[in-house]
């Protein structure tokens, strides 16, 4: 849904722009649970309004949601579903199924499809199905999948994910897969960036991880940071693209 305007800013546009989670989100089911990952950039037009946001939000103790699209829309959906699930677990007398949480998100998204812009990935662990991942793209389709990617940054990693995903990965392999994919997307998507947050959900509970923005790997055409620009002129300057 990005307009190709070159990102040049006018005084009206960014002031009226919706707060947008142009983003990269991901969830992968592994042997015994799920690993969820996301970037941390929230934008208002071209301005980064929050460079450290948390897009992985709890719906219940064992089910989390990755949010992309409109920040307001996904927040309100999460709030409603958290409320319904809370009541449901009281009645049920036990933790909710991932499928139930995902279905509730789907119902809200589908029946309000003309008003909402919310791309969601619901994932978690329950004792019936183990680790489950559900993709709920725009329009309110509910799809159970082995892994899901979403947000504007996901376009850049379809190839990588198709090639790197393996069935029955261990927890460490799944974490590595999610981390690599999200950082690759952040390297190319202007709407994704900041730091990488992850959530690992299994029978033992939820483990939250964070990798800071200055600890991310460098990919093609990126260079080692230095503390200051003062040494910029100390090396002799030459053509950057030396094969010209």
């Amino acid at each position, binding site marked *: 849904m990005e307009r190709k305007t070159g990102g040049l800013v006018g005084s009206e546009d960014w002031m009226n722009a919706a707060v947008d989670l142009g983003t990269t989100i991901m969830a992968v089911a592994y042997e015994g649970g799920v690993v969820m990952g996301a970037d941390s950039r929230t934008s208002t037009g071209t301005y980064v309004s929050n460079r450290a946001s948390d897009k992985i939000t*709890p719906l219940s103790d064992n089910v989390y949601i990755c949010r992309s699209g409109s920040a307001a829309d996904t927040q309100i959906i999460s709030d409603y579903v958290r409320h319904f699930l809370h009541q449901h677990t009281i009645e049920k007398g036990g933790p909710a199924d991932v499928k139930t949480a995902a279905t509730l998100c789907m119902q809200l998204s589908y029946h309000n499809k003309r008003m909402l812009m919310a791309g969601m990935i619901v994932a978690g662990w329950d004792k019936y199905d183990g680790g489950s991942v559900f993709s709920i793209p725009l329009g309110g389709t509910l799809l159970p999948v082995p892994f899901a990617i979403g947000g504007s940054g996901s376009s850049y990693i379809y190839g990588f994910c198709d090639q790197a995903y393996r069935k029955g990965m261990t927890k460490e392999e799944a974490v590595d897969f999610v981390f690599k994919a999200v950082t690759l997307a952040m390297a190319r998507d202007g709407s994704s960036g900041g730091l990488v947050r992850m959530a690992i959900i299994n029978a033992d509970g939820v483990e939250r991880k964070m990798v800071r923005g200055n600890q991310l790997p460098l990919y093609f055409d990126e260079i080692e940071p230095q503390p*200051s*620009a003062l040494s910029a002129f100390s090396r002799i300057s030459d053509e950057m693209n030396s094969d010209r």
Partner: protein
Amino acid sequence: MMSTSLSGQRGREQPSGAVALDSSAIPAMTLGTPIVAGGESSCSLQIMAGPATRTLDPYVVGSSVLGVKYKDGVLLAADTLGSYGSTLRFKSVERLRKVGKNTVVGASGEISDFVYIMSLLDELTTLDYCWGDGKELSPKEVHSYLNRVMYNRRNKFDPLWNAVIVAGVHGGESYLGVVNLIGVHYEDSHLATGFGNHLARPIFRAEHRVDMTEEEAIRLLEKSLRVLYYRDKQSINKYQLAKITAEGTQISKPFALTTEWSYTAFEDPAKVAVGTW
């Protein structure tokens, strides 16, 4: 029917470097439309034949350029990104380039238009050389020339979609000026294009002094470059500096800066507000 009006940009993002202009300041004009009293055009003649060759929309664009005067001359800074919409497509684009012996220009906006501007400036410097009059093109003359080019293109509704900063030292005097796609031009002791106007200029206003040392000036630019990297979507952590003094011009190799992410507030933002963004 193809409308080539600039006000068709209403609601779309406006060019970087533009002093916040209300888009209604640029009148709606469709090519070939007779200007009828009351502003309503009842017919538009399709005079234009063939495909549009004018820049309607920028494609590969550069973001902010910063410039500050200091004790020994002028310093410019820019990152090396060419964005393609929201894609960070090209990460080694030279947006700071030398012109003659005493001037450097830095451009934001459409890269292809900047390359074309450089070819025009190349012709200009060649012409200057051929005069063989012992006089060198001054940065003010380069700025003035670009201003005419940009404004004339604007009048033909075919702008070069850039904001260009011109910096140099001539006759012992430092020069720093800017000109953009609609021909708005001015000089100052510190300048920026695009997002730099919103994020870097306030820092400059607070901390810049014309008699700063080179180290102080670089630190000031560094501070602004970091803020731009944190807060401008179309930016990367890879920059070049350009220095112009009485001795000549120098453009640095690309470098990256360390960034700060260790605030406790960043660790668990949802602690006090679940579902916060």
